[in-house]
């Protein structure tokens, strides 16, 4: 494999999935690695996360720590959740349905955790 597309489709913090997929993407940077935010995974794009009082790691800090991971958000998912009018993590690239789906198919492997 030279490229991998990880997909997150559940909300961050409520489950360990977002943390898990970020860690998996972070260790995969010797390949071309994309993390796609899809459906409730799109909530990970919200700016201003501060998880100290939950005693959990700050997931947006992990995003900034690994600039090698391409972060792609599915625009229709953002729109459905009212996220387009919110401040988003700057590193997040928006992708329309077409681009998002073609990026999934273009990667050597596709992983939904």
């Amino acid at each position: 494999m030279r490229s991998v597309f990880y997909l997150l489709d559940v909300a961050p913090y409520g489950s360990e999935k977002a943390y898990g997929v970020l860690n998996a993407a972070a260790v995969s940077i010797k390949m071309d690695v994309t993390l796609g935010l899809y459906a409730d995974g799109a909530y990970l794009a919200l700016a201003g996360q501060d998880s100290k009082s939950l005693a959990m790691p700050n997931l947006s800090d992990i995003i900034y720590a690994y600039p090698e991971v391409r972060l792609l958000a599915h625009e229709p998912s953002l729109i459905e959740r009212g996220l387009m009018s919110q401040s988003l993590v700057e590193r997040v690239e928006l992708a329309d349905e077409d681009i998002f789906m073609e990026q999934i198919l273009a990667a050597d492997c596709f992983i939904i955790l």
Partner: protein
Amino acid sequence: MDRKMDRKEIFLLTKPLHSQRTDLCLRLLERSMNAVLYLAGDGVYNLLESSNLKFPSGVMVWACQEDLLARGIQSVEGANVPEDFYRRLVEDMASDDSYIYVF
């Protein structure tokens, strides 16, 4: 219908907008005559100002502060964000004429 009119119905929602549990919660909420809604965990995403979720009018909404902060949700119109979310929830549950529904 054997439900008493004066009973209090407490809804605890921990799922985001597009979850089928959220949908079920809202449909039950609409049938309630005296409801209070507690949002915790991913349930607080329902408060995003631009979210298209509409709570029935007259429903008191409480949201958990640490869950809002973690997720980056800044302004929450129409909801109360107390210092002691879980104490309030438990006190509400403690009254004899209350019923609790968790989603």
